[in-house]
């Protein structure tokens, strides 16, 4: 009997038939593995992983994508994507990715890095990868501190923000100002796309996905390096509940790290 002729109660009584009759609106992306993630409850890493996987699926590049994972909370990122992946030393992902891309120019190579990894120890590597205009995609997760090691201050820590290594609150006279590295990188001719998005609300998450897509297109279309900084929550190390953590991103981080586009190559502008 065709599904269409089933009356609603009949559909309801046989769930598997009913489910088959329905239109799937959302399901697990193919580019994500089945592994349970190690991230803390409510952590934005999980959301960002999913967005990347959705973009990889939608661009149809899973079979030629190679990921380079950082050292930090996302050190196990390679367990969560069904793409070939390598684990870089702390801060070195852009150099490692350069080594991969240069010998496999037709593969899509992206790095996934935290703020400690990219904006502190790895600053030289990301600056020069951008200066060279490496055809790479960089997903830069900014949660204002070092998560994996238990919440220490990072160059992205907010003024006055208490962390385990700025117990009196970050004092800009002593420990300097938050680093706006994505704006800095956007100045380089080799960068084709540089933007900052956030994960603190559904609408922001959708915009983040669009930005990730453009950062991949910058590479796919050979325009230059694409980097997306994504403000992310860290409930555990901020000592906040997942919802409070998203509020912290919205109310405290966004004012210091304004969201927006810092560079959009004109070939990408049509799609922005």
């Amino acid at each position: 009997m065709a599904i269409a002729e089933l009356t609603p109660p009949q559909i309801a009584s046989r769930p598997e038939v009913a489910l088959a009759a329905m239109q799937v609106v959302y399901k697990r992306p193919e580019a994500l593995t089945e592994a349970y993630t190690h991230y803390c409850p409510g952590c934005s890493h999980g959301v960002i992983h999913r967005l990347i996987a959705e973009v990889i699926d939608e661009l149809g590049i899973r079979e030629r994508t190679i990921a380079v994972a950082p050292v930090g909370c996302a050190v196990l990122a390679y367990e969560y994507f069904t793409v070939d992946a390598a684990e870089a030393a702390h801060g070195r992902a852009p150099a490692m990715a350069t080594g991969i891309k240069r010998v496999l120019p037709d593969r899509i190579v992206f790095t996934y890095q935290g703020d400690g990894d990219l904006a502190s120890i790895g600053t030289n590597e990301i600056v020069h990868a951008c200066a060279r205009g490496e055809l790479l995609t960089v997903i830069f997760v900014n949660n204002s501190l070092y998560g994996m090691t238990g919440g220490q201050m990072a160059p992205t820590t907010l003024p006055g923000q208490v962390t385990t290594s700025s117990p009196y609150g970050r004092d800009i006279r002593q420990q300097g100002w938050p680093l706006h590295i994505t704006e800095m990188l956007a100045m380089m001719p080799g960068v084709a796309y540089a933007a900052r998005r956030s994960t603190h609300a559904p609408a922001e998450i959708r915009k983040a996905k669009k930005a990730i897509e453009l950062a991949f297109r910058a590479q796919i279309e050979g325009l230059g390096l694409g980097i997306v900084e994504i403000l992310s929550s860290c409930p555990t190390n901020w000592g906040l509940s997942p919802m409070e953590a998203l509020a912290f991103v919205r109310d405290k981080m966004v004012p210091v790290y304004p969201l927006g586009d810092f560079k959009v190559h004109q070939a990408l502008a049509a799609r922005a």
Partner: protein
Amino acid sequence: MAKTLWKGNEALAEAALRAGVKAFFGYPITPQTELLEYMARRMPELGRVFLQAESELAAINMLYGTACTGTPAMTSSSSPGISLMQEGLSYIAASEVPAVIVDIMRGGPGLGNIQPSQGDYFQVVKSAGHGDYHAIVLAPATVQEAVDLMYISFDLAFKYRHIVIILGDGTLGQMMEPVEMPPFKEVNGGEPPAWALTGAAGRPHRVITSLYLSAERLEALNLHLQEKLARIKENEVRYDTTMVEDAEYLIVAFGTVGRIAQSAVRQARTTGLKVGLFRPITLWPFPERELDALIERVQGVLVVEMNAGQMLEDVQRVVKDRVPVHFLGRMGGIIPLPDDILPALHTLCGLVRSRNGHRVRPVPA
């Protein structure tokens, strides 16, 4: 094949091209830079990858990335640069991807100078990075030998999925000599090995990592690495000897000093002194068994190095006090010449007291 005149650094570069290297990442540092410059000219000619990195630290991580794709790749540097590469080398060793590194040693420690030295023996042979492993270390004494060792280094690196370090010094890098260049060939038949990251097309995705959070799995990896090192020790020892058949005394030296020691041996022989030379070519795996066998037949050993006594410790470990071990060391870039070695030999043989206060540091038997 006709011999042509080659500068050490450039000979090494050309030999690497012929050995099938497909990517070079480097950084300027004397006394190695001509190797980088040569690659800058030649690699593009052959449609291969050349990239000068922002630092040696970036260079080794670029090499690490390329190595993960199963593509033959290398870097080259000198002492301070190698120090910056230690973290990357350790990751490469743990990930078991093939990598070739050329280290043209210079005077140290610190900024030191640009003269030749062997002061990094410990750094390269004992610990080329954190954790339990040794790189395969090849020490050429002549430009031809440097070419020959370079030519086999990628095959060695791929055979064991390991690090191969060609350890030379400023002399070797800078001097020119006639050399016979080997023909072009491919590594691994030019195909990426089964473990390589190439994109999960029609196969499960692959991961290359050096992270093993479980202690059991990390120990298992280490046991596997140790088993591999044992195989390398069993199969890859290389060394050279001069006039050891009837030798009563033995000089042990490597690289440039090994070559100079040959002259000292010949000169000593003219004075009737029965001395021979044992020259390790693989500093790791160190030729223990072969040296041990020789010790049975000699009355004393003179170790000569351009450092404060580093390979000396490996020699002492093998000799185990069966005969006196004397040491002659010059540092700062000063090269010990035969005229320095002969008096030390005479002291070893008990013929002459050390008159001119020459830097001879007799090591208690």
